């Protein structure tokens, strides 16, 4: 990477050498170095584009390959949770067509409510995959849609590097651009969301984000409507792909606003932003899921405010030319103080209340959001883990940018500052920070290399010159010997250090990718002492059992984490899933899991549950199982049903959460506990531990004699990781005498929202959660 980046500066160097020559003592153009080559390559322009092309291609290749760990270790498989939903939707799209997809009402989710999928997803991802699949099939390249989905994110990572290159080139120079492209191709912060199989919105959205920013910078630079429209189209793609588009629609107005404050208003800016705002607004409203949000919700208001401000500012500028100084001053004070005051306060107000991420602070106490691990605040460790050396160098890049400020560098500075802030709020938003860190670090590295390697070249170049210069070279060599040597050593050391840092960065990236981000989490692997591998395929075993051996319309109750996987792999109806739009429904499932069996049976009967699926890691020591998540279920249930469920009941008097004999009786008799440990008490895993020893929690379970009355074990996977219980139908009742009876209305457990008739699919407070960001 390091050597490459100097090449783009070739021309620059050539001319600066000439400038350094004194009184006709100019050296022959350093381009003489390439004089021996023939054809187009004699021209540095040719070299430059060839090198850039090669480097970008290699960056793409490296980025693509380093995302394939999971495919090579396991198989071409969709990972984790959300990607399964995306895959299922894409599959639906390719089999039923675009309009069917837009109108898709999924009756297999959120039983009995269902979900309007077409109107509650960002369709960009599915459409992209579907389109690629369609084109490939049109060309008679028969690829399964699954493979398209699996490899989409790695392919798009290449596009991300190219757009990062373009953006950085606009901000700084080509060398920095190439470095940035290489950084973003392998940086773990981005790989974490774009490995092969991670078929998620973020995989394509980061490309759209970077490309939109590039086009924005371009349109601000040129002031051309063409670039502004291109920017809008890219923004449209971003809106269709990811809820993170609000980041763009807030950052660009912020950029404009700050430029105005810095007295950097220009006609170019006016054209760019006016076009972008209007066309972008109209385009973004075409996405069914977004709809009228851009003109209604607070997070879009900053953009509108800045638009108005910009118009007012431009109008004032216009008046300035036509009014006398006196008139203008009066008008100015009146108008500006009024308009600016209004706009400023609106913007301030909106920035503080309307920023999407501020929801997080307001809502962080809501259990269902807090329960998602990626919504936790970021630790310093994860900054280093995801960005390694870049996290240290990017402030330097920011400093360089601020030192040589211009319109677009204002933008990148704002981008950096806001992204750092958001990344600090939650782990998940590391993703938006990563690209800007790559760009700024690239600028920092590029500057250092330019300084030291550039000097180097000046000294090293002469030997390549024509023989006619030999004497002169000797002279100048003698003249500068002493001073040169010291400088040369310093620059050698600096260069070496930098290269070492970059090397370590590359090693770290590969290591992190391989160890932390390449597990499909659907398939687990364990290693024996001799290094051979065991694959634990329990999830698919159980899901496939459900798919093959239960009624097609069977309803499966599980914790919401597994909703998408059950829908995708088992193809069965679920009650709740990772969409989490309806808290009360989730709370109801949580309540069923945390109640005793007969109370749970009532809930399950009212929800027509046929099977209950739980994850139990006690046999193999899998820590992400339902007992470990259980307290969240209790908390969420308590939020909606405080009279029936109390978190404190599940703790020992000492305030501990224990599954052994000392555990609270409520816990030891709740449905989740019973289902997890049913017949586990008889099981002796090895000779050192007593029967019923839970390996995950390292405790002997407290309730070994578990009997189920309303449920029966329907299936348990090989390593007990997934356990499925069948809800027994009620026994036939005694024959009734034929007297007329009065039936009393039975209390049904349905969600509050339903009863209130206010079931809003894009409901207020959870809207953003639904894979939104």
């Amino acid at each position, binding site marked *: 990477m390091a050597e490459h980046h100097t090449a783009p500066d070739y021309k620059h160097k*050539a001319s600066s050498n*000439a*400038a350094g020559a004194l009184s006709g003592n100019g050296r022959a153009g350093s381009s003489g170095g390439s004089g021996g080559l023939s054809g187009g390559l004699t021209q540095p322009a040719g070299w430059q584009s060839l090198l850039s092309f090669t480097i970008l291609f290699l960056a793409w290749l490296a980025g693509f390959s380093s995302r394939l760990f999971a495919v090579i270790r396991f198989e071409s498989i969709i990972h984790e949770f959300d990607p399964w939903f995306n895959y299922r939707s894409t599959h639906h799209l390719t089999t039923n067509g675009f309009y069917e997809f837009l109108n898709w009402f999924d009756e297999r989710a959120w039983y009995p409510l269902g979900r309007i999928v077409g109107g509650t997803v960002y369709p960009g991802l599915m459409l992209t995959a579907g389109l690629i699949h369609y084109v490939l099939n049109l060309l008679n390249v028969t690829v399964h849609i699954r493979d398209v989905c699996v490899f989409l994110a790695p392919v798009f990572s290449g596009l991300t590097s190219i757009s990062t290159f373009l953006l950085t080139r606009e901000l700084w120079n080509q060398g920095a651009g190439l470095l940035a492209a290489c950084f973003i191709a392998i940086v773990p912060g981005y790989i974490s969301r774009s490995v092969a199989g991670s078929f998620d919105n973020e995989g394509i959205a980061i490309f759209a984000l970077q490309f939109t920013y590039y086009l924005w910078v371009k349109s601000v630079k040129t002031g051309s409507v063409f670039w502004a429209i291109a920017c809008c189209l890219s923004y449209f793609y971003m809106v269709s792909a990811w809820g993170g588009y609000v980041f763009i629609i807030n950052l660009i107005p912020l950029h404009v606003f700050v430029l105005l404050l810095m007295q950097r208003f220009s006609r170019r800016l006016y054209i760019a932003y006016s076009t972008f705002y209007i066309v972008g607004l109209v385009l973004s409203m075409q996405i069914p899921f977004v709809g009228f949000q851009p003109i209604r919700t607070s997070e879009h208001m900053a953009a509108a405010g800045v638009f108005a401000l910009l118009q007012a500012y431009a109008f004032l500028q216009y008046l300035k030319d036509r009014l006398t100084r006196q008139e203008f001053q009066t008008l100015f004070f009146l108008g500006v103080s009024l308009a600016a005051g209004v706009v400023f306060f609106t913007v301030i107000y909106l920035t503080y209340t309307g920023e999407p991420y501020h929801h997080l602070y307001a809502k962080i106490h809501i259990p269902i959001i807090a329960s998602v691990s990626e919504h936790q605040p970021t630790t310093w460790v994860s900054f280093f883990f995801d960005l390694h050396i870049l996290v240290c160098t990017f402030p330097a890049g920011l400093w360089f940018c601020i030192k040589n400020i211009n319109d677009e560098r204002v933008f990148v500075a704002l981008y950096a500052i806001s992204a750092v802030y958001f990344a600090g709020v939650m782990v998940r938003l590391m993703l938006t920070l990563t690209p800007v860190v790559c760009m700024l670090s690239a600028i920092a590295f590029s500057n250092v290399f330019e300084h030291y390697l550039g000097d180097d070249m000046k000294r090293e170049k002469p030997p390549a010159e024509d023989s*006619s210069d030999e*004497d002169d070279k000797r002279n100048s060599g003698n003249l500068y010997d002493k001073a040169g040597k010291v400088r040369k050593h310093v620059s050698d050391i600096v260069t070496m250090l930098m290269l070492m840092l970059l090397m370590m960065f590359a090693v770290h990236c590969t290591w992190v990718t391989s160890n932390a981000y390449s597990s499909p989490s659907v398939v687990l692997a364990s290693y024996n002492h001799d290094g051979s591998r065991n694959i634990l395929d329990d999830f698919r075993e159980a899901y496939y059992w459900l798919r093959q051996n239960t009624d097609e319309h069977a309803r499966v109750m599980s914790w919401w984490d597994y909703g998408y996987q059950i829908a995708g792999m088992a193809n069965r109806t679920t009650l709740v899933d990772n969409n989490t739009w309806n808290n009360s429904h989730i709370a109801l499932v949580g309540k069923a899991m945390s109640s005793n069996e007969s109370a749970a049976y009532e809930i399950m009967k009212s929800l027509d549950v046929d099977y209950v699926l739980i994850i139990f890691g006690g046999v193999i020591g899998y820590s992400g199982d339902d007992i470990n998540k259980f307290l969240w279920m209790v908390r969420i249930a308590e939020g909606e049903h405080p009279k029936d469920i109390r978190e404190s009941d599940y703790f020992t008097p000492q305030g501990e959460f224990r599954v052994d004999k000392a555990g609270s009786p409520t816990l030891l008799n709740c449905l989740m506990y019973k289902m997890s440990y049913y017949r586990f008490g008889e099981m002796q895993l090895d000779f050192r531990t007593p029967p019923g020893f839970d390996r995950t929690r390292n405790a002997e379970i407290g309730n070994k004699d578990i009997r189920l009355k309303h449920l029966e074990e329907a299936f348990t996977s090989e390593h007990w990781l997934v356990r499925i219980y069948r809800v027994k139908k009620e026994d036939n009742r005694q024959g009734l005498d034929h007297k007329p009876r009065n039936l009393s209305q039975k209390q049904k457990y349905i969600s509050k929202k339903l009863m209130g008739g206010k079931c809003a699919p894009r409901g207020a407070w959870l809207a953003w959660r639904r894979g939104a960001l």
Partner: protein
Amino acid sequence: MLRLSVPAYVALLGGFLACAAAAGGGLVNEEVKRTVDLTTHLAKITAEILLANEGDAAAHSFTVGLEAELAPHLAYIGAAPFPTHITQAERQLVVFQGNHYLYSPYLTRIQSSRVRLASKNVETYTKLGNPSKNDEMIEYGPFRDVAPFTQDVMKIHYENNTPFLTISSITRTIEVSHWGNIAVEETIDLRHTGADLKGPFSRYDYQRQSDSGISSIKSFKTILPASAQDVYYRDEIGNISTSHLQVLEDSVEVEVRPRFPLFGGWKTHYLIGYNLPSYEYLYALGDQYALKMRLLDHVYDDQVIDLLTVKIVLPEGTFTWTRLIVATKRNLVEQHIQDMVVHYTFNKILMLQEPLLVVGAFYILFFTVIIYDPAAEVRMKVASITEQVLTLVNKRLGLYRHMDEVVNRYKQSRDSGALNSGRKALETSHRALTNDINSLQVRLKAEGSDLAEKVAELQKLDGQVKDLACRSCQEAERLVVGKVKKEAYIENEKGLTGRRLELVSRIDGLLDAL
């Protein structure tokens, strides 16, 4: 009950040959030995018949009888589980219903039947003619002089834990490529057709007790052709990681383990696919091709198939009414693993179609790139010309330095001849360089670049530099000749150098802007 496929037929034929001398119309079964093999879920009945012709005319054929109720199950009939639902701990019992006698249009003189069972445990069996039972064998008969078409129900209720596995449907797709590969993919729907599992499935019992779920199916072996490569075994949700592949000398053995053990009534679905080299199966004579492959291949021992669909995809450009040949057949067993031959005509030239398409596509792509974007072309040209200008100007600046050297040398050696020749040589190359730059400037102008003006200014500045250089040369001459004093010369030279420096830096500035 009756498996009238190859083995049964062979047995009959053998019997016929044994009494080839017999002639006439009145055929009689002299002696019949039946074996009813009930060890698997497939009842295999073989009958060894000694046939006699008691009539006068020669018999050229004889008739094999088949019970009317068996006709729909011509290929096979299995034993039915009874009870139909069992728990995990229970053993599977099945009932076999058949005929005690050989169903034949002829009189049978003497007949005996031997029934082989899967286990010793027999609940009940019909006691016609006081059969003898020892261990896993029941022997009926001998019966004498059985009238034609005699039927008498034989019913045996016994334990049979062998896997009752049925392929409810199999789709075998064979895709032929003339590039040397035949891809075979089988989509299989499997079902355990034994007694349905009643009540819960307990993994604990299944793991801890060896006889728990004894009739369930854990795995089975599929034998693929020896040349099979790239075998995959998967389903809708991905690779099934529980399989093992063993390459033997004459076959490839796949241990197919479904994702979960199959209990009674449970089903599963999977794909198994592999590639075969086409030279083993594809024969060609000119444009005539013949594909000779198995219609059906081995899935597991004693396989029972309800419905087979074979799809053969021939290469694009084949002269038939269709590229896709589909055949279906119901009720198949292992004996149906037989070869089929598909003849078709294919023009070899058409093999080039695909590579040519790819080449063509890339050609068009590159060609458009070359033709399109004229702006980039101009930009590149201008850039290259600018580079050349840069090089030339730098070279020309280098000439002045040489000039200085020549002058310095002259000042020491006072050799005016050397000075003149050096000056001449330099002037020639200077003129050449200037001309080159001029022509480049013209080209720049032709490309419509505004850089041409800058180059023009460059030339103008250079002219001034040259004048200065010439003047300092003359001054040096004058110094050597003694027309000027050294101090004056030095002062003069200083001024000249200063102006030159200034000019050169202006030139550099221009070059930077280029």
